[in-house]
């Protein structure tokens, strides 16, 4: 009975370690990422590990969650949900949005930036990995187990040399090897970028003097001191003015 339990434990540990290893080296387009922000909540919580697999952009559908290369920084990955796919014969453009955000992302994702479609989410494991890679974590998860394993192996060699029977490769040893493997796998971070929008609604302008018509000069009711600013928004070299609190100050 004891042997069966030990065998099962070893198989589980090896399987888990092998899966992590395969994922970490991107075999078959599989990738793992740690989600570092929360715009995909409640589907994907901050600190989750997402497992994605490369999917050709033409096979993606609206509502799929994808991980893609960020538009502003190389080697920064973003994980958001697809809201719209524009597929022409030559180019695929994808609009995305975080579930928690109130507006679509401001960028268009080119099909070539898609890293993978998210297929599985393991919550909270990112916090464990982050802790394991902190100073205290390295001490607890790596150094102490390393010392434990070294002592155990050395004592095993000594016992073999003395021809004493001993139980090699205990379950605890495998557990610690798993921790070592897990700790040294460093999944790349992906961001579910949070965003929020604010709107000025209903700006209305009337153009009274059209082309080739004499222009009307509108004199502001209160004209503060005119100071030159870097902006050169107007043609004819119009100067911008310091508008203080006056709204809609006209410039000529």
């Amino acid at each position, binding site marked *: 009975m004891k042997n069966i339990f030990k065998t099962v434990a070893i198989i589980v540990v090896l399987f888990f370690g092998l899966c992590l290893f395969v994922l970490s080296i991107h075999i078959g387009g599989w990738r793992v990422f740690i989600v570092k*922000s929360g715009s995909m909540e409640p589907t994907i919580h*901050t600190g989750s590990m997402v497992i994605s697999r490369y999917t050709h952009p033409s096979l993606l559908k609206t509502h799929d969650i994808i991980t893609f290369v960020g538009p*502003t920084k190389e080697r*920064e990955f973003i994980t958001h949900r697809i809201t719209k796919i524009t597929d022409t014969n030559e180019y695929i453009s994808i609009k995305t949005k975080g579930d*928690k955000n109130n*507006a679509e992302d401001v960028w268009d994702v080119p099909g070539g930036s898609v890293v993978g479609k998210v297929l599985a989410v393991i919550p909270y494991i*990112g*916090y464990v990995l*982050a802790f394991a*890679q*902190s100073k205290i974590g*390295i001490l607890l998860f*790596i*150094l102490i187990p390393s010392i434990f*394993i*070294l002592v155990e*192996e*050395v004592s095993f*060699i000594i016992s*073999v040399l003395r021809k004493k029977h001993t139980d090699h490769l205990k379950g605890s040893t495998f557990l610690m090897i798993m921790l070592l493997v897990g700790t*040294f796998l*460093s999944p790349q971070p992906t*961001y579910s*970028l*949070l*965003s*929020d*929008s*604010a*709107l*000025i*609604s*209903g*700006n*209305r*302008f*009337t*153009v*009274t*003097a*059209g082309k080739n018509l004499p*222009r009307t000069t*509108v004199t502001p009711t209160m004209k503060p001191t005119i*100071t030159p*600013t*870097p*902006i*050169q*928004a*107007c*043609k*004819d070299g*119009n100067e911008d*003015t310091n*508008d*203080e*609190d006056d*709204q*809609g100050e006209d410039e*000529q």
Partner: protein
Amino acid sequence: MMIKKIILSLMIIAAVGATGVSATRALLNDSAVLGTSTFSTGTVDLQISSTNGNSFTDGPVPGFTDTLNPGTSKNYSVWLKNATPDVDFSLNGHALNVVLSPGITTTFIKIAFTKVADDGSAIVGAPTVLKTMTLWAGGDPFGSTFNLAANTAQRYKMNVSLDDSAPAGSFSFDFQFTGTQVIPPSPTPTPTP
């Protein structure tokens, strides 16, 4: 059999020893890869005001109604506030529901934003972003110099100008500001001596 067991043990010792040495060096060099402090949870909040810098709202706020003749421009004030305690924003502008009377095109209209002081006075060297309505209508970034840090408010001068070849008529639009979380810089590991 005995030699096989010893070789296996020696391999484990070598692997674990190498791991321990690497971990110790990482510990001494402070080169942790993931940090718990870099996880961002909670929500973000971009607030706006078109009247003063004291009363912010999630929006929408009423727009500006005015007369604008060709070859002229007018200034308005807009305040934005990043009411999030720990997330910086990059800003993006998007002109929505753009309606133009015949003859007026999006290339005739330019909208510029300039950072100004709280009292509306100019700031020396303040960044300005100037784009045509064509670009704003497609959504366009303000640029990193307009990033809005966590827990800060900023007043902007919004300058709307009309090309002098525009005909008489009218135009209207909504303007949406979107604050998107800025990815925090990656920790820079100390080079191993």
